[in-house]
């Protein structure tokens, strides 16, 4: 008999941490700036997943309001970086 907290503790959190480490390797290696921006976007999504899982783990829905804000902020950061990559190319 497996419970939700066991699932979170033994499956979901380790896979999120492994994903975080793999994305961090890509951010450090990444040849172009676009790869790093994509990694940063994925890290924002990993943070969303951590917040959702913590709010299930501690049984408190207060944290779930952060998820909406974090999704919008991550989108805005990616759009700003795309604009910056474009403009940096034109100034060369």
């Amino acid at each position: 008999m497996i419970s939700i907290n066991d699932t979170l503790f033994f499956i979901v959190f380790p896979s999120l941490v492994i994903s975080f480490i793999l994305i961090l390797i890509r951010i450090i290696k990444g040849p172009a700036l676009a790869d790093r921006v994509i990694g940063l976007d994925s890290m924002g999504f990993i943070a969303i997943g951590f917040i959702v899982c913590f709010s299930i783990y501690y049984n408190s829905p207060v944290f779930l309001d952060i998820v909406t804000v974090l999704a919008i902020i991550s989108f805005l950061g990616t759009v700003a970086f795309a604009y910056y990559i474009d403009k940096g190319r034109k100034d060369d």
Partner: protein
Amino acid sequence: MIEYIIIFLLITGSVIILITAIGLLRLPDTFLRISATSKASTLGFSLFILAAIFFFGDFGISFRMLATILIIFITAPIAANLIGKAAYKSGSKLWDKTKSDDLKDIDIE
């Protein structure tokens, strides 16, 4: 019964997120990486948020979380499109085995 739905959603979401991270590390091209992370991470985190909806079962929380899923489904392809266009314009290399390149003859500005 609803516990098993939540557990299934959580495990499926975490497997999809792990596949996304492996794809982001292993794929050979910037555009393939963009494709992997934008599609799969959208589905994975939407499954997480669906698990939270089933866990709490409150009307207000469900409504806000469905709005968040809608926001993710709208904004993730737009962000991927913008960053892909910027990466193509800034001269990032395609993979060797790429078959078709539709933007090759067009001078985008």
